[in-house]
């Protein structure tokens, strides 16, 4: 394997990682602050992608599409928080899983009802399409580089929000002791709605960004949701820093494992077996990573609570 190919695969891993981070950030905040397992997070990812496809189709502007994806998913998030999720904070996790699973079904069939069963068209704008040549002669799609940039910018923005702003202080306080910050006069239900809408908006933005290079279709959010859960379990529940490190670990492991393992197996067996055994093991690799991390640190890399 040439160094150029390896460098390209590392970029691919980082790109997958930062998009997983944008998806997982909201999930980990909601779990950390409200103690809620939200399976419908993947549906908000889908809502963002569909809103972007609809707006891009109507106006032709990709920027407008991204803004509307963020807005639509945040609005959908705020709506379900007020109507459904709010009633679940005091219930146990099984009730939360059941109710948010029901939301997945409602979102999926609702989306099909509005947009139909066929995948929608959403594409990269012309000014971001095509490959660029990086130092060292690596040809890499400009859009994927943009995704890395946007993901890192969001990560930086979230760090500032959590560590420097008043809202961030309230969120951190909410993670540590809910009753106490309510007693101090913070409107806890408003805080919850804001955190939920923020997480939903980020999921919707991720859906729109990723939807441009993938297929915008009903059910697109669920595979990403599973990866996002792996990310927050590895990173430690409630930790933004953990989500970033976990997402990059998962992205790199998944990408490099898929490329390197079949090569590794070829040293021992014939090519056909190596391809299928390598691919099979590569798809398990992130779960093996998760298990190893949990054995080593049961609360995840940066998790505070058990």
């Amino acid at each position, binding site marked *: *394997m*040439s160094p*150029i*190919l390896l460098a*390209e*695969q590392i970029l*691919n891993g980082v*790109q*997958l990682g930062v998009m997983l981070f944008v998806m997982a950030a909201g999930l980990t905040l909601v779990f950390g602050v409200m103690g809620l397992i939200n399976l419908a997070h993947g549906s908000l990812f889908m809502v963002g992608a569909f809103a972007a496809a609809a707006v891009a189709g109507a106006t032709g502007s990709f920027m407008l599409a991204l803004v509307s994806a963020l807005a639509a998913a945040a609005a959908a998030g705020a709506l379900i928080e007020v109507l459904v999720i709010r009633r679940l904070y005091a219930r146990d996790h099984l009730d939360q899983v059941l109710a948010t699973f029901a939301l997945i*079904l409602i979102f*999926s*069939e609702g989306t*099909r009802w509005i947009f139909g*069963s*066929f*995948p*929608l*068209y959403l*594409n*990269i704008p012309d000014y971001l*399409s*095509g*490959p660029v040549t990086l130092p060292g002669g690596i*040809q890499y*799609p400009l*859009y*994927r580089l943009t995704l890395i940039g946007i993901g890192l910018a969001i990560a930086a923005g979230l760090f500032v929000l959590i560590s420097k702003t008043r809202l961030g202080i309230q969120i951190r306080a909410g993670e540590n002791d809910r009753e106490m910050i309510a007693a101090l006069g913070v409107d806890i239900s408003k805080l919850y709605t804001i955190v939920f809408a923020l997480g939903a908006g980020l999921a919707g933005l991720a859906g729109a960004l*990723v939807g*441009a*290079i*993938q*297929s*915008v*279709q*009903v*059910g*697109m959010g669920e*595979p990403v949701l599973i990866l996002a859960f792996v990310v927050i379990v590895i990173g430690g529940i409630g930790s933004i820093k953990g989500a970033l490190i976990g997402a990059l670990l998962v992205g790199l492991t998944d*990408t490099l494992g*898929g*490329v390197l393992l*079949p090569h590794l197996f070829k040293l021992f067996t014939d*090519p*056909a077996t190596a*391809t*299928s055994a390598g*691919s*099979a093991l590569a*798809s398990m690799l992130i779960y093996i990573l998760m298990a190893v991390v949990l054995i080593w640190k049961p609360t995840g890399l940066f998790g505070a609570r058990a």
Partner: protein
Amino acid sequence: MTPRTLALAACIAGLAGGAFADTHAGKVKVGMITTLSGGGAGLGIDVRDGFMLAAKQAGNDKLEVIIEDDQRKPDIAVQLADKMIQSEKVDVLTGIIWSNLAMAVIPGAVAQGKFYLSPNAGPSALAGRGCSPLYFNVAWQNDNLHEAAGAYANSAGYKNSFILAPNYPAGQDALTGYKSQYEGELSGELLTALGQTDYASEIAQIRASGADSVFFFLPGGMGISFLKQYADSGVDIPVVGPAFSFDQGILQAVGDAALGVVNTSQWSKDLDNPTNTAFVESFQAEYGRLPSLYASQGFDTANLLLSAMDKADISDADAFQAALEEADFASTRGEFKFNTNHHPIQDIYVREVIREGDVYTNKIIGTALEDHGDAHAAECQMQ
């Protein structure tokens, strides 16, 4: 997600007298189990719409169709089949899209003496040793379109192909099918995860491999993702694949990225025969969209059934089977006949993706394989 049940008493003939006397004699009840919700719903909806269009055009009041959604889940498909056979008492089952669901339902259904007409899935196990006198496949055996892609690669002069497919039985069959006809070298072979949406890593390997052509089988959303990312990567090695990533429902979502890509199919909307022309026109008039190959398969399945109903009574299974074997109906594919294992012998065409006004569609540019059966027929002992 509530399973919908649509009952069709197809247009009433409007004649009293003779028709009144035999309302029950020869009536056929069809149970259609297909995918109408979730990610793969586009395929099931096309099969259903094609089938119901043929039923409506025939105006046959002896055909009653019960439609249920399998949600692309084998366990649900099996439950629905049991319900249709035991309490609805259907005579014929049809509709399943996916091979894993077909394997779960068909052996049990034919063992209980029901006819099964497949409008899509054609797993190799049911074409070879597992074949049955009551099971007919009206679409293709799973390997066919991939074999045609391999044959096309030879005629295009490709010597060094990079091939990839998802890691599940139909994906492995696809690579085997391609390799069975393709005579050149392989510069790489990859099995991707089923449902994978990001192909950056695979595309980087294709770029580094020095291949002169790429064969891929990535049905549904996987193909959309791959084609968009491939077009954006700047790799310009020609791509060939089976029609499943280029059907009418998917092309609009891929857009320009699919233009000029060559794919193989047993059907195309520009196939020049009167049945097909009328089918494309009436499908558009009825549903307001262009038909896909899945819709043509549903349409042919219904017409096959109707042709057998004209010749024999469903209560006489042997006669009805013989009537089905004759395949005496006007297919949208032109010539159509059944092999000894009840799978089609048909021409498979090479198509190219073009743009007509605002709509992306396919145009036939040649024939890959003529009168092509499948490799499994020899293993089939009908009994």
